[in-house]
């Protein structure tokens, strides 16, 4: 059973009909529905292709937030071997919204860090829906330091609505933690590759994404503010998020045009959630490719290029 997004409703109807027919046939041996059912399948397939060939910015936001979309731990478990999770900021707590540790991809030992939104009610609550607190960012800082000292490349997987807006988070210095984490990204003398696998929500995402390469999945988004937040401020109406999403230019394609994203990884037809295995494999191939390119570079070069990348940003706008 699929979780359908609002714009996938027509698709849900067709797939539902096909499913109904087949269920009927299963309970009634004499019935042969295969011809009709596969006609519906074809229709659904065509519609799916059509729907996903030209997603609006807001629809991309919905796809990026899809609950069945592969999350950070799906990537870690399926792409990496020998994953040894490392916990804690050595100061206050272990924030489960950010997971990280030592792992291998191919033969290469790396430090992998990412935001995990959780996959069911229990884990979503545990992981605070992927919204990290200062201790999460401080854990990331610690792990990046570790990577730097032992010369291990860092792979970050970004998927967060944003840093957590909470009382304790503010008291423990959410701003400072994010600022220091971004700073750490810029300081380490090892390759830093970021993949935006779902949502790149504002400063909470930047803190893990100030790296050498920014790779985005085809339907992932990365934005300074959520479309809803932007709509409520600029339009004074949160329900105008469709317009806000369009205006903010949040899609991987926009970010690539602006020189922010270095590569876009295509998703299977119908989005990553329809075929997680293929998506995860493509992400793995991209990571390995960039690791290979970057691992030849000296620490000073990596730092210098990273800085230059950000200093040079903004030299191109979007075509009118």
């Amino acid at each position, binding site marked *: 059973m699929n979780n359908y997004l609002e714009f996938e409703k027509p698709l849900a109807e067709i797939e539902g009909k096909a499913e109904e027919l087949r269920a009927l046939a299963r309970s009634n041996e004499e019935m042969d529905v295969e011809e009709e059912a596969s006609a519906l399948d074809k229709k659904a397939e065509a519609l799916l292709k059509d729907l996903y060939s030209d997603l609006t910015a807001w629809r991309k936001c919905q796809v990026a937030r899809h609950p069945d979309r592969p999350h950070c731990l799906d990537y870690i478990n399926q792409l990496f071997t020998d994953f040894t999770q490392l916990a804690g900021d050595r100061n206050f707590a272990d924030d489960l919204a950010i997971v990280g540790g030592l792992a291998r991809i191919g033969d290469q030992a790396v430090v992998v860090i990412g935001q995990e939104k959780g996959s069911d009610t229990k884990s979503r609550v545990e992981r605070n829906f992927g919204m990290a607190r200062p201790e999460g960012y401080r854990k990331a800082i610690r792990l990046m330091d570790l990577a730097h000292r032992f010369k291990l490349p860092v792979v970050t997987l970004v998927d967060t609505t944003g*840093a*957590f*807006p*909470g*009382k304790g*988070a*503010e*008291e*423990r*210095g*959410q*701003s*400072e933690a*994010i*600022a*220091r984490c*971004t*700073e750490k*990204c*810029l*300081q380490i003398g090892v390759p830093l590759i970021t993949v935006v696998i779902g949502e790149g929500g*504002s*400063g909470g995402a*930047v*803190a893990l994404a*100030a790296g050498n390469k920014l790779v985005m999945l085809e339907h992932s988004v*990365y*934005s*300074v*503010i959520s479309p809803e937040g*932007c709509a409520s*401020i*600029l*339009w004074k109406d949160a329900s105008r998020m469709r*317009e*806000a999403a369009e*205006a*903010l*230019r*949040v899609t991987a394609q*926009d*970010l690539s045009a*602006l020189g*922010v994203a270095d590569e876009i990884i295509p998703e299977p037809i119908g989005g990553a959630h329809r075929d997680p295995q293929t998506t995860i494999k493509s992400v793995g191939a991209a990571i390995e490719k960039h690791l290979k390119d970057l691992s030849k570079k000296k620490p000073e070069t990596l730092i210098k290029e990273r*800085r230059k990348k*950000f*200093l040079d*940003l*903004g*030299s*191109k*706008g*979007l075509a*009118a």
Partner: protein
Amino acid sequence: MNWISNYVRPTINSLFSRREVPENLWKKCPECGTMLFHRELADNLNVCSSCDHHMHITPRDRFADLFDGGIFTEVSVPEVIHDPLHFKDQKKYPERLKAAQKKTGEKDAMLVAQGEMNRTPIVAACQDFSFMGGSMGMYVGNAIIAAAETAVKLERPLILFSAAGGARMQEGILSLMQMPRTTVAVEMLKEEGLPFIVVLTHPTTGGVTASYAMLGDIHIGEPNALIGFAGTRVIEQTIREKLPEGFQRSEYLLDHGMLDRVTHRKNLKAELTSITRALTGLPPAVAGDLPKPSKAKSEAPKAEEK
């Protein structure tokens, strides 16, 4: 005090209804409601004489006080692509920009200058809250980079006064990218061993706090300034509880270890002098070193060059 202002106001307004007179001779303190005469308020660095509330101060007025004799040299900021996203909400972004430029007389939300503060050579950058809420876009990023580069070139400390609601949404992802971009600027200073001192003024929130404003060697807050990452309303809606009195204010941050000091605006210059001189190996400033700056603060500050 109140009855005087209420009584005097109409008379003065009718007396000075000529063109060159500022439109608002009186300003109401948003905290205590006292009506304050504009010249007195300016002499008091926009701090309410009745309740000590620190009101917004423009970068030029700030610099007129900070630099000896009100003399400073503006550091030019590289141009940016205006409206890189062709952003339009209920208004077009270029229209909003133009309105803000007309209102403030400034190009964008940050002014950078170099000069001497109590005979201590410094570079200073000041964010302008009256320009689209001080929001950080490409221009502000360029201004901070220009400030850091100038500080490195002249081997001087950088003092930055922050004031912003956050990033400039109208520049989308490019505004967000000013977080790492300005962090690179801070790195340039650190590498050269130059002090980076941040004075956080009301309000400093969002992506600005979560980047350069929290990366100083020293953090000084102006009294009662709102400083935080998330907006108070967003937090209340998220955690569904009322936030304590003074939450996200300078004094609260001082209590929670995020600031080094909370300093009254009138004491800032002396304090910044003493800090920068200590950090750069200069002997203490001697009082009486310089003649007192001229009183004519309400006039436009003189700039050595443009």
